[in-house]
């Protein structure tokens, strides 16, 4: 790799990590040098997060070499990696909701005063000092419960700073941040680099990688692909490295006949979550709901489905007004929902493929209230076949499937209900490239078949490639709507960070 003369601070070579039959990391390699910001790029499911967790000591690699300053290391626990100076900020911050902000930063290393007792006041002051430095007004005494994702992220960064880490790994730290928060974070990151720390930065946003980083390593399908110096490369080159093929293939978009409105949402409100949400989705149309993480997109979808309560507003499906808070009514009316969090919401991980697939159909499969087990198995098998779910047995739990196949099971169980409206929330998050294209093709085909689709996605290429219409949300309000022809990355990002308009609506 580059800089052959200089010894890397951290070097991971040919790391392999498997979970049962799933190979999460087939060949993970990366070198981090002191004083650099190193981007790690790759599609969802490319193995970035697994690699991060191996660095963090959270996962143990099955094989491969791991060296710090030339010394082979093996981390048994997170504490080991932390002791070696590695600090990780995860994609989804995991704070302790019952502890204070200050305590969340210092847990396990609280400053101690007399008699070895924790000096809570000193701890608070340390936290305040870090927040001051970061320029964020967070009360160190408040409980972490109920903090916004952006604030949680800041606390994670504050923790890394307080740890005096020499390696800081940030797994998509900007996903939920607003423009000026991102700028602030970058300033901090640069100053850390200038003081000699090694930073690893994971982001899907090319412009961020190019404005912040010095080098970039690309991964695909769990394997190391290449490492390039940022000044010597271009975004399109990296995207090619990531995808490994032409990008058009990923977003097969068929021409569909746009028909009558299927879903009409009027003036939906929920205090503190979203407000004045009105839109419509027609048969055969794919409408994307875009925006930053935390803008309230998933919450709107959940409210439309009736999973979350609303304060006011109406949801009309095929001309029939749905009672709020009753998902079953929405499902009976022809609504399907592929949720954002496959593991927690989309599937019952411990249940079998069969049971998961049949779960949406449970009432339809029953005669006189008794489920016909054979029919249940047949229907599940049929939809498994249609979506080409690869599993060794329909009686195996879905936890044993790969992410892509799990998502197919989720899609299968909803398609089995023959929905008129399908809401898909981050439909391709964390699944491999091949399956991703399959999912996209499937969505296109559904649209051709006259299904109305509401798609939530944080991936701009997906939004631009698939949507007939793009709605953009910012801070709980819809700030823009673009037809396919008018949607550009710049416009969408602008609307997604249009706080002024969001506040005005």
């Amino acid at each position, binding site marked *: 790799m580059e800089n052959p003369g200089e010894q890397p601070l951290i070097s991971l070579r040919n790391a392999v990590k498997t979970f049962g039959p799933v190979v999460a990391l087939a060949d993970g390699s990366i070198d981090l040098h*002191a004083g650099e910001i190193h981007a790690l790029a790759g599609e969802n499911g490319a193995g970035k997060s697994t690699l991060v967790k191996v660095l*963090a*000591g*959270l996962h143990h690699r099955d094989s491969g070499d791991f060296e710090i300053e030339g010394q082979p290391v093996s981390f048994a*626990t*997170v*504490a*080991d*990696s*932390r002791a070696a*100076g590695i600090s990780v900020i*995860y994609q989804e911050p*995991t*704070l*302790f*909701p*019952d*502890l204070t902000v200050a*305590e969340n930063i210092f*847990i*396990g*290393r*609280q400053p*101690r005063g007399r008699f*070895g*007792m*924790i000096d*809570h*006041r*000193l701890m608070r*002051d*340390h936290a*305040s*000092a*870090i927040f*001051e*430095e970061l320029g964020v007004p967070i009360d160190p*005494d408040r409980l972490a*419960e*109920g903090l*916004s994702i952006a604030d949680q992220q800041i606390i994670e960064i504050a923790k*890394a*700073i*307080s*740890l*005096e*880490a*020499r390696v*800081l790994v940030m797994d998509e730290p900007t996903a939920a941040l607003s423009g000026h928060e991102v700028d602030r974070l970058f300033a901090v990151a640069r*100053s*850390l680099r200038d*003081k*000699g*720390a090694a930073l690893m930065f994971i982001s899907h946003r090319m412009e961020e990688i190019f404005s912040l980083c010095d080098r970039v390593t690309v991964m695909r399908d769990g394997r190391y692909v290449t490492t390039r110096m940022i000044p010597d490369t271009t975004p399109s080159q990296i995207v090619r490295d990531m995808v490994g093929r032409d990008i058009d293939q990923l977003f097969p978009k068929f021409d569909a006949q746009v028909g009558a409105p299927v879903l009409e949402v009027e003036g939906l409100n929920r*205090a*503190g*979550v979203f*407000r004045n949400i009105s839109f419509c989705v027609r048969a055969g149309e794919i409408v994307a709901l875009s925006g930053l993480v935390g803008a309230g997109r998933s919450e709107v979808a959940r409210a439309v489905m009736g999973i979350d309560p609303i304060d006011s507003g109406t949801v009309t499906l095929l001309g029939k007004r749905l009672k709020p808070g009753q998902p079953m009514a929405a499902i009976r009316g022809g609504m399907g929902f592929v949720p954002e969090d496959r593991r927690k919401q989309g599937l019952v991980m411990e249940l079998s493929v069969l049971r998961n697939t049949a779960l949406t159909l449970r009432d339809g499969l029953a005669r006189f209230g008794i489920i016909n087990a054979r029919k249940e198995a047949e229907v599940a098998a049929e939809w498994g076949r249609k979506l080409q779910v690869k599993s060794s047995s329909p009686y195996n739990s879905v936890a044993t499937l790969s992410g892509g196949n799990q998502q197919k099971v989720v899609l299968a169980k909803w398609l089995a209900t023959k929905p008129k409206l399908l809401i898909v929330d981050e439909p391709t998050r964390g699944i491999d490239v091949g399956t991703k294209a399959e999912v996209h093709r499937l969505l296109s085909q559904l649209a051709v078949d006259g299904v109305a689709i509401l798609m939530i996605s944080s991936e701009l290429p997906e939004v631009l490639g698939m949507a007939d219409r793009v709605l953009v949300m910012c801070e*709980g309000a819809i700030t823009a709507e673009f037809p396919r022809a008018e949607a550009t990355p710049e416009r969408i990002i602008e609307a997604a960070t249009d706080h002024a308009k969001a506040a005005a609506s």
Partner: protein
Amino acid sequence: MTDTQTALPRADIAASARTRRRWNPRSLLSKRESPVVLALLLLVLFTYLANPRFLAPQGLKDLMLNATIMMIMAAGQALIISTRSVDLSVGSALGLTAFLTGTLFATYPSIPIIVVFLAGIAMGAGLGAINGLLVTTARVPAMVITLGTLYVFRGVNSWWAGSTQYFAGDRPDAFGNLSVSLLVGIPIITIIAIIVIAVVTLFQRYSRSGRDLYAIGSDPDAAIVYGIPVGRRVFTAFVTNGALVGLAGVLYASRFNSVGAVTGTGLELQVVAAAVVGGVAIVGGVGTAAGAAIGALLLTTITGALTSVGVDKFWQQAVVGGLILASILIDRLATLRRARNLRKATS
């Protein structure tokens, strides 16, 4: 990590030492305990108004003595519950240590009292270690494991004791006097209990491993991600709780007339209830040993108070049940209100 390598900026502590030193009243008790303290004060007040004898020296002494053993056990249980576990075997463990105490005095009449205390605590800790080991190594819910050891410990106790019972006469007077003699108006065993509970509460608030327990209860998965030694901490919590139960067992032998095969039967749910009433959330993460102890005091006081004001004794248990429900309900409503306020604040 060496200074040359260290690069992350760190706030200069001296410079940041705030002038804004607002006094923080969260010393030993957080506000979670205030409802139960208030309830206790009101209960004592009303009972006193109805029957002044309730707070006569003897009444006060009885009040404290009744609660002492339950208070220690509730404090220990608070440690366990704060990690999102539970220990149902405490009644049986108490029986075993109480019987050990009786046996020691009967077998070695001249044994120093302190040795008996240490033996009881050690045995309790050992029983706690069995629970802790099973829970942490087998990774199965503490509730099932301790339900199992509830039966096993009780079985061992019955086996060991058979029909043997040790009575007040079998023990040195000095030992029995621990639960009789007063020091500044407070029975000695109560003083022991208060000291122990204070130490446990301080541990919870001011030690790193104590704080780790809350982190584990707050979000066990996050605790693993953070590198908190979850297994070791939970194990330690079980051993500590065991030691406290051991202490309670020794004090039980001092306090009550006889110890035998069935001593302490059925205490487990009362102890859990006391902790819950004292503001320890059953889902972990919050609550203090002191709160749990006050919960125990409230539950034991209510029985005495109802008798004292002449409420039909048949109502006592129902009142206790209502109290448990009320306390978790209050807690829940407070949480809901907080969540609503947060949502409003962000909108």
